[in-house]
């Protein structure tokens, strides 16, 4: 990206730097993952100010509990996105948030956010339309519910009114489609 110099490290280098708590690791972490994590957070928490708070909380938690991450158990991003998702869910389910009346029906969020933020999608991802077309509507809806809205598959089954087994199958097929697409 031409507009700004961003730090990028390999995942191994980043993990090593994070372990040593080097200052450059914090910056690299932010440059490499803030947009992807914010994409998840801002689909769960619609209010921008609160979503930004959650993003900050996410980085603080990643930074402080990095000792809890084990590379053997999975990718760094998987660990981080689960932290971000859990913090975002905690936020919208907190009494505080509900009292502010800022919560919206979860199922409206993804479309709402996407309508609002189409313009900020990365230019190199012009193929996003293809990506969306790759997924069948029922695959996309279940994947987005679980990945971007923080539903458990049990809640998603309830929401969509389909059996648990079907949910699991559709979710798997959606991800299989993604794998094919990205490969």
């Amino acid at each position, binding site marked *: 990206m031409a507009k700004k110099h961003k730090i990028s490290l390999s995942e191994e280098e980043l993990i090593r730097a994070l372990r040593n*708590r080097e*200052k450059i690791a*914090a*910056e690299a972490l*932010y440059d490499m993952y*803030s*947009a*992807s*994590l*914010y*994409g*998840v957070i*801002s*689909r769960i928490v619609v209010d*921008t100010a609160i979503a*930004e708070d959650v*993003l*900050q909380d996410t*980085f*603080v938690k990643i*930074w*402080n509990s990095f000792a809890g991450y084990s590379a053997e*158990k*999975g*990718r760094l*991003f*998987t660990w981080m*996105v*689960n932290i971000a*998702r*859990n913090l975002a869910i905690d936020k919208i389910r907190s009494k505080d948030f509900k009292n502010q009346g800022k919560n919206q029906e979860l199922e409206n969020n993804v479309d709402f*956010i996407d309508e609002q*933020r189409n313009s*900020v*999608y*990365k230019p190199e*991802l012009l193929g*996003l339309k293809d*990506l969306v077309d790759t997924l069948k509507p029922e695959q996309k809806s279940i*994947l987005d519910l*679980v*990945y*971007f809205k923080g539903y*458990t*598959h049990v809640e998603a089954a309830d929401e969509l009114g389909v059996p648990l087994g079907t949910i*699991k*199958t559709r*979710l*798997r097929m959606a*991800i299989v489609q*993604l*794998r094919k*697409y*990205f490969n």
Partner: protein
Amino acid sequence: MEDIKAYIESGILELYVLGDVSHEEKLEVEAMAAKHPAIKAELEAIERSLQMYAEANAVEPAENLKGKILNSLVTNLADDRIFGVKQEDKPEAKIIPMQGDRRVTIYKYAFAACFVLLIVSVVALVNAYRQIDQSNNQIAALQSQNQKIANTVSLKDSEIGVLRDASFKMMHLAGMKKSPASALTVAWSPVNKKVWIDMATAKMPANDKDHQYQLWALVKGKPVDLGVFDADTTSKDMKEMKSVEYADAFAVTLEPRGGSPTPHLDDLMVMGK
């Protein structure tokens, strides 16, 4: 191998990556992945595709957020002894002077407050002292005035007593050869043995400071001293003299100040009976 394929196709691995499994399921997946490379590879493929899906749906946060968040991490660094090496030299070096500063500031304000209080107190004290002094002077003045009035009232009482008392005889002493114009009224009560002279009606030439007038009673031909007085034209009072029980006549002579044991008849001013 059939088991592994079925396990993969059950969808549990996707749920594991999404963090949507129970603790037992999580341990089970991790155990299976450790045991079977195929499962580990499958997990990695799922993770990679979901990461790319997230990247495809990325939303750039506001630009000013980066500084804020990095600052909060760096602050955290300092708090959590992160930069361990540098932390060890004098960990509290920055805290001590700050506390000192604050204390000095507090003392500064406290001292200033005390000083202001002191000045205010001194001013108030001086004022109060002045007022008390003034009041004391006033009280003294009033007391002396009061005393004067009391004396006057008591004198006037006595004077009125003389006039009311029928036993008093008014005797008009007339001027003699040395001073024919002189006159003096003497009130004498043989019953009370009291003698008063009336200064209001006295006509005596002014005496100098070396001399005084002396009143005498002639008792069976002998002069008896009844005391001295000055010719005071401003006085409107009566003056009580020494007492005498019996007198044939009264006379006034001019004598040296303080009076004489016997009268100098050359200076006989007035006489009468």
